[in-house]
């Protein structure tokens, strides 16, 4: 279980290099990477977070995933600060003996990170900047777990 909250970019290839490496009890690895889309003339995005709480909230979500599924490894990295279109915002990775657990745990982590980790996105375009509103569908996504 690894949690990192950072301003700097990250490289999924480097992060995955040692992920669940040298183990022979892992049959499945799933990764999710979230990127900044350039929709609607987005110039850049700023992500604010709550230092201290952020790490604790993500660790609690990850611990919940480990309780629910048979995982051999998990990883969450989330950036804050200023990000341009095309940049990576965050990634999660899960490893498990079987694919179902790896997929479900990765989706669970994503759904909870969206709505329960203290990050707030602000989108800036030529015409101004606005805080991204939470989506009902993101809150509803938690109901399936």
């Amino acid at each position: 279980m690894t949690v990192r909250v950072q301003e700097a970019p990250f490289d999924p290839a480097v992060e995955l290099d040692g992920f669940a490496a040298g183990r022979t009890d892992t049959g499945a690895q799933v990764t999710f990477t979230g990127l900044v889309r350039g929709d609607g003339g987005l110039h850049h995005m700023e992500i604010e977070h709550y230092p201290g709480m952020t790490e604790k909230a993500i660790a609690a979500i990850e611990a919940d995933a480990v309780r629910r599924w048979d995982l051999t490894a998990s990883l969450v990295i989330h950036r804050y600060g200023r990000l341009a279109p095309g940049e990576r915002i965050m990634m999660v990775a899960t490893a498990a003996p079987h694919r179902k657990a790896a997929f479900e745990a990765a989706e669970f982590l994503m759904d909870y990170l969206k709505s329960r980790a203290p990050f707030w996105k602000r989108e800036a375009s030529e015409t101004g900047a606005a805080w991204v509103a939470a989506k009902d569908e993101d809150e509803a996504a938690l109901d399936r777990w």
Partner: protein
Amino acid sequence: MIDVLYFAWVRERIGLPKERVKTGAATVSGLVDELRAREARYEAAFADTSALRVALDQELADFDAPLEGVREVAFFPPMTGG
């Protein structure tokens, strides 16, 4: 005395990220009422608490949660991470 933190548009409306507040409120709602009574910018930030979330000592909580023993209260909009 309690540390009160504001994030995202709550921070922008109130105009500061953090302050120390002397409060006699028993619950989060009581603290919100005290803050709202202060100035228009607080009233603007707390106009609709259903659009807000609160954390007590860095754990999500409800607005009717007791404040006793709490050192840090944070107010912010629903999260938009991921």
